[in-house]
Structures are given as C-alpha cells and as structure tokens.
C-alpha cells in the first residue's frame, strides 16, 4: 500500500544527491520492505557535431505531464505489489554529471521492485510531456531526441 501522495515530481535544476539519500533512509522505516530498485538518470557529455554537451535545459507542459505521471503511477501500483513508488524529474538547467531523473520502487521482494522501476522509467520517458534542449560547449544547442 503506497502511503506517499506525491503531487509534484518536478525539481528546479539538478536533483540533489542528498534528496536521494533522504528518500532511501525513509524506506528503512518500512521494515516489511525487502528491496528497492532505483533508477538515477544523469546528464551525459555526449559529443554532437564536434562539441560536447555541457548542460540540458528541461521544459514541460506541467499540467499534462503531472496528469500523465499520476496515471502511470496508478497503473504501476495496480500491476505490482509495491510498498512505495516515487519519481523526480528536473526542470530548468542541469549540468553534465548532475542528476535529472530519479525513480524508486520498493516492495517485499526484488522481482516486482525491479520490474516496476524499469517500466516506470520507460513510460515516463515515452509518455510525459517533457522536452530537453542540449546545450553544447560551443554555445550552440540541439533538441534532445529520445530513442
């Protein structure tokens, strides 16, 4: 039974590592949880046209994105017996090496946590109204394209 009611997943700028630590420590309170699966997405310094990515600027249609997040969360929680499920995504500028995306799924056993986390990551990337603009070291920019 998921207790957290996470309204908003967006954080301005990079997701702090301290927040992730805090979330993991919070999971300790549920001693019936045996596993948590987490995904941490970090901005990568891809080379594009001879210049490296220095940052990504994320924008979102907030209302549509959050509606979709709640739909994904409901669906994942109905499909897998999870103790907890949450996610965060950056908006605004995130530098290479900083964290821009985080998903946690916890459960009694590892199987459902791992599957739920993976499914959530893929669905959030595919279905949520979020866009990333890659800012390059040569001061040009290119819009990110997901696979």
């Amino acid at each position: 039974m998921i207790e957290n009611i996470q309204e908003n997943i967006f954080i301005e700028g990079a997701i702090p590592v301290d927040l992730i630590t805090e979330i993991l420590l919070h999971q300790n309170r549920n001693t019936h949880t045996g596993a948590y699966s987490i995904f941490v997405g970090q901005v990568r310094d891809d080379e594009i046209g001879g210049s490296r990515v220095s940052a990504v600027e994320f924008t979102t249609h907030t209302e549509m994105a959050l509606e979709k997040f709640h739909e994904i969360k409901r669906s994942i929680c109905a499909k897998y017996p999870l103790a907890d499920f949450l996610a965060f995504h950056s908006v605004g500028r995130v530098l290479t090496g900083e964290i821009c995306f985080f998903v946690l799924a916890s459960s009694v056993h590892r199987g459902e946590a791992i599957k739920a986390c993976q499914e959530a990551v893929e669905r959030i990337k595919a279905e949520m109204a979020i866009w990333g603009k890659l800012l390059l070291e040569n001061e040009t920019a290119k819009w990110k394209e997901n696979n």
Partner: protein
Amino acid sequence: MDITFFGRLTDLTGNKDLNTDGITNTEELLQRLLDLYPSVSEIPFVIAVNNQIIHGRHILKKGDHISLLPPFSGG
C-alpha cells in the same frame, strides 16, 4: 484562442505562444500555423486541446486552449 508552443516549436516560431482568431477546427489551425511559421512543417507534433491530445480533424471552440507538442524527450 490561445496556442502554446513546446519543445523545438518554440525555436521554430520564435515564440512561446500565439493568440489568434477565426479558427474553427484543427485543419484551419494547421493552415494558420503554416502561413505564419512555415518552418513548423520541419518537425512532427501532436495537438492537445484543453490538455487532451486529439487526433484527426477536431472542432475548436472559442476559449479552447491549444498546446502543440513535439515528440517528448524527458528522462
């Protein structure tokens, strides 16, 4: 009628939004967009009316809020 651009459409139009009149359906909307910003034809996008993605020809009413959404690239 308010139209908000997202993602690469903001660069292609040079705007975050547009206010325009005299549009009654999505075909007219697309034609108006192409007239104003021919480069929007460079990328695919979907249309959301009042935060619901719609497909095909759709009637538009005064007061509808339109969002134009290129392919998502979050995560």
